[in-house]
């Protein structure tokens, strides 16, 4: 009485094959991704040493068969923290305030324009921002410097912070806003006492994600920061940065420097992993 359609067998086989294909595609696609992370961990990990974290660059000198250690990447770590830290300081107020504007005045033409502009900024290849910073600042001041890199990175961070702030603030239930509104609270009071406290943790994670992304950006730095082989704390002059070291040491003919490139890549990757995982853990607790 309950009978199967006559062509069911063929359909069932197609079903099986296509579902298998989707699984297979996922596995195949994950292979290179696992390989990359695996290589970075193994080869980067083996180049880790105390000197790696405590010394700046030393020129590799051949002593017989042995090539002396080229020092470490402390200058890159310091540079990245300084450059990205300044970038965060620039981007945070702009991004958060603009995000508040978008969330609290969501549907006028100014908000549409602002939203369009954040989309433009986040769509722009990072090299474009580098080109603009180069043309506008490096060319006029005549010098590469760390702070120019910070400005370029800040421009890349702003759309991320703005949009996460907007999204997070919009997640704060409208009903809670209404409760405050119905009690006669002005908008600014409502935002400060109800909306922002509820969203603060998530905004911080948004900033952290932007920081992680900016710390790995390389292209704008090539055009603005230039790089430095010595440990420097001066953002007004060329300064080293981890992604720049990864790039430059990749291009070097010395295997010891190539090893350092793997090491810096691992540092960058670990940072991205840590930030993303901690953000994920933090937001999961918030949502449940």
């Amino acid at each position, binding site marked *: *009485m*309950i*009978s199967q*359609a*006559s*062509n*069911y067998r063929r359909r069932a086989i197609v079903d099986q094959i296509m579902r298998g294909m989707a699984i297979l595609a996922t596995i195949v696609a994950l292979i290179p991704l696992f390989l990359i992370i695996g290589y970075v961990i193994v080869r980067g990990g083996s180049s880790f040493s105390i000197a790696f974290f405590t010394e700046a660059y030393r020129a590799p000198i051949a002593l017989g068969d042995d090539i002396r250690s080229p020092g470490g990447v402390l200058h890159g770590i310091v540079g990245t923290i300084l450059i990205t830290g300044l970038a965060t300081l620039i981007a945070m107020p702009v991004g958060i305030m603009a995000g508040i504007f978008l969330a609290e005045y969501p549907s006028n033409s100014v908000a549409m324009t602002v939203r369009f502009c954040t989309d433009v900024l986040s769509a722009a290849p990072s090299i474009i921002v580098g080109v603009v910073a180069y043309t506008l600042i490096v060319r006029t001041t005549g010098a590469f410097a760390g702070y120019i890199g910070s400005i370029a990175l800040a421009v890349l961070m702003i759309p991320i912070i703005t949009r996460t702030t907007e999204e997070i603030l919009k997640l704060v239930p409208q009903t809670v806003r209404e409760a405050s509104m119905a009690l006669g609270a002005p908008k600014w009071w409502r935002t400060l006492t109800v909306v922002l406290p509820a969203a603060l943790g998530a905004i911080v994670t948004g900033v952290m994600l932007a920081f992680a992304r900016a710390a790995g950006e390389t292209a704008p730095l090539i055009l603005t920061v230039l790089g430095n082989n010595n440990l420097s704390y001066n953002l007004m002059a060329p300064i080293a940065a981890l992604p720049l070291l990864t790039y430059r040491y990749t291009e070097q003919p010395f295997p010891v420097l190539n090893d350092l490139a793997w090491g810096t890549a691992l540092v960058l990757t670990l940072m991205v992993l840590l930030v993303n995982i901690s953000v994920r853990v933090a937001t999961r607790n918030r949502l449940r």
Partner: protein
Amino acid sequence: MSHANQNEHPNITLKDLKPFYGSFQAVYPVNSIFKARSITAIIGPSGCGKSTVLRCINRMHEVVPGARVEGQVLLGDQDVYSHTIKPQAVRRRIGMVFQQPNPLRQLSIFENVAVGLRLDGMSKADVNVRVEESLRSAALWDEVKDKLNHSGLALSGGQQQRLCIARAIALRPSVLLFDEPCSALDPISTLKIEELLVELKQQFTIVIVTHNMQQAARISDHTLVFLVERINDVHRGVLVEEGETSQIFTSPQDERTTDYISGRVG
């Protein structure tokens, strides 16, 4: 009743039916018989598991991740949960209409009705005949015959719902399940659907879930009342009473049914 007749118009029997979500049993065991060529209404407050029970009948319950069913659902004398039977075959035999009218967005009105037939690989000519027949049965043909190529979404809510009924009828099932089919519709569309249901019961065994008690009273022959039982913060659906609709609404046997029907709970 001859065997062939029983085949054509089978009863549905629920035997110790227990729907689970993961390890949570959502409803206490249900035993009941839904008679052929009649309308059985399942009423109850939200969260009482009435939709869940309905979806067990054509094996739509198990589509939800982690959901499973214990017990039996007999269509005539065949258990739809038998290992030899595929859920796809069950669903072709037991059609379903959902709460929200759900024409497939990318398909035309015609293709929406034909979609199940196309899966079977039915010939073009046969499809044409069957689509027209189904749309006529669903009392929609006159309204859409000139725009069969238009999107189903261009129809009003009530028309969309009748389109979905036509889609279910097209496979010539013997049972039609309705999951709150009118809750998204305006009063006039509701009336049309109700009239259609009464019409359709000549050919199909009909089970309808509704939260609207008046609706159940208007159209159904039998009524099952489900309620939520709360024990230690665990909410579980329970079948509290079943019987002739007139009897349920005029002289319910169970105190809880009285409370529910008089609006004291739910």
